[in-house]
């Protein structure tokens, strides 16, 4: 059971929900950056939400199926997705026949989209996850992005099939213009914290899976750069001396020396993966009880996120 890569897309990697419980030895989490969209794709296919899938960044692949398979594409809205010559929809199960070619082009808005399969991608497992971590070449397909001409192998997964009903997506829009946060441990190093919540931040081209960087609008921070490195996670917002906040991403390092001014709330951390270069966004400060409520609401809307 195989598909062949005809076109790769900008940065297409195999991801699951990440490498958990290895941060104490310095191994980053990795995993799908917009894990809500990723989990959704698997849930729609009635598969365990941790099943490996392809994460596409800005542009996606063309894949030739050498076997019948079902797929589901979620996340950023793709300009055009076709199977052979017919357009197909996102957020729904699509049958792809043996010999057919699935083609994706470019994300119209937001950044990452996910292609999940009814069968399980055979990828390298390391510390209980097949997520690709490019900087150290862990997991995925040889620790790398998918390559043109590559054959991706699949294994049968009957035993893994979900017992529940497949998820039916209501097509809720991804909204990244406002990211809710709580105060971080070094929040008090901000000179005038109110400015932070009145500033339009602009996503930098230098952003990647390690972190979403910002440009232009600087916030005043009182830091001499001498802090001893502190624990950090995906979703923590660091602010270096230059005043340009960095939101740490799925591949975030585990220790860092810049002030941790904010943390994106658990209910919205998946949105960081959809911030696209030149997008504008603001931070909105909420309390810990509000952050807990937001998570409860997300669980009501998407019951499968209990496992996240």
């Amino acid at each position, binding site marked *: 059971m195989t598909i062949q890569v005809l076109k790769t897309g900008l940065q297409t990697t195999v991801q699951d929900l990440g490498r*958990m419980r290895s941060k104490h030895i310095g191994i980053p989490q990795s995993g799908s950056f917009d894990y809500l969209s990723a989990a959704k794709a698997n849930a729609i296919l009635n598969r365990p939400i941790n099943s490996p899938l392809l994460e596409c960044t800005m542009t996606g692949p063309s894949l030739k199926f050498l076997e019948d398979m079902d797929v589901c594409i979620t996340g950023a809205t793709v300009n055009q997705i076709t199977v052979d010559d017919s357009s197909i929809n996102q957020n729904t199960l699509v049958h792809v026949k043996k010999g057919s070619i699935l083609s994706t082009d470019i994300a119209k808005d937001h950044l990452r989209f996910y292609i999940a399969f009814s069968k399980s991608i055979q990828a390298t497992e390391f510390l209980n996850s097949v997520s690709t971590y490019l*900087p150290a070449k862990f997991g995925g397909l040889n620790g790398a992005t998918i390559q043109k001409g590559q054959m991706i192998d699949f294994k049968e997964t009957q035993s893994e099939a979900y017992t529940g009903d497949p998820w039916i997506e209501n097509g809720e829009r991804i909204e990244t213009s406002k990211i809710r946060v709580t105060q971080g441990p070094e929040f*008090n190093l901000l000179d005038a914290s109110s400015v932070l919540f009145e500033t339009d931040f602009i996503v930098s081209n230098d952003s990647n899976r390690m972190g979403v960087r910002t440009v232009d609008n600087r916030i005043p921070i009182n830091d001499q*750069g001498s802090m001893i490195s502190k624990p950090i996670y995906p979703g923590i917002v660091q602010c270096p001396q230059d005043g340009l906040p960095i939101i740490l991403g799925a591949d975030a390092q585990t*220790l860092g020396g810049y002030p941790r001014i904010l943390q994106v*709330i658990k209910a919205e951390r998946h949105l960081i993966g959809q911030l696209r270069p030149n997008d504008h966004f603001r931070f909105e400060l909420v309390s810990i009880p509000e952050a807990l409520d937001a998570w409860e609401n997300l669980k009501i809307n998407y019951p499968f996120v209990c496992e996240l």
Partner: protein
Amino acid sequence: MAAKSLAMSFNFNTKISVIAEDMLELRLHVSHINKSKFYWHLAEHLLNSQNDIEVIASEEVISIRSKVIPMDINKIESALSSFEFSLISQIDHKLEIPICYEDVFASDLKEISKQLNLSTQEITDIHSSASYEVKAIGFTPGFSYLGDLDEKIAVPRLSKPRVSTAVGSVAIANDRTGIYCLGGPGGWPIIGATPINLFNPDDTGSVTLIPGTKVTFKKISMEEFIMMQSRN
């Protein structure tokens, strides 16, 4: 700052701060000579006490992030109270790491030599003759923070971090020296490289360099470097 904090006493003094809906930080007041080792083993103990948490130890704080929220502080407290540092082996691993300081590996050595007004020989002599201890592990996979570096050769981080460093690069910054075991991005000036692979976690995630490990360096030539590398 933190929303609330509570002080408690166990066999060591701990302050737990609630940072966010799924994050706590612990600060200990240990007069222990081996503080970083204490932190790291306590972090590992906490991790093993619950399946749904992540734990990271830095040199002065332990951070816990929980999958299940709201977090159950009682569980953390009870794990803290069952930690016995005396049960951790007090015999520290000792490791001699060979380092080659030849130009080809030492991208920033000449610049540092100018900055400090010391010869490259003086810098590498100071670096290789001291004894170090692993203070923390993390940042990127396989990176270890070793201290304390002689203040005579203390330099700041690079103003612009490198996108990638060569596997095994040996770097210094402030009072720490570190090894980029797996390469990756890095902001510390590089003065050498080791041919030894110090990072090969098995599936249980156990690694060679953990806080508390005593490290010494040994200067090697390019020929020795190549010979040792071929044995990996």
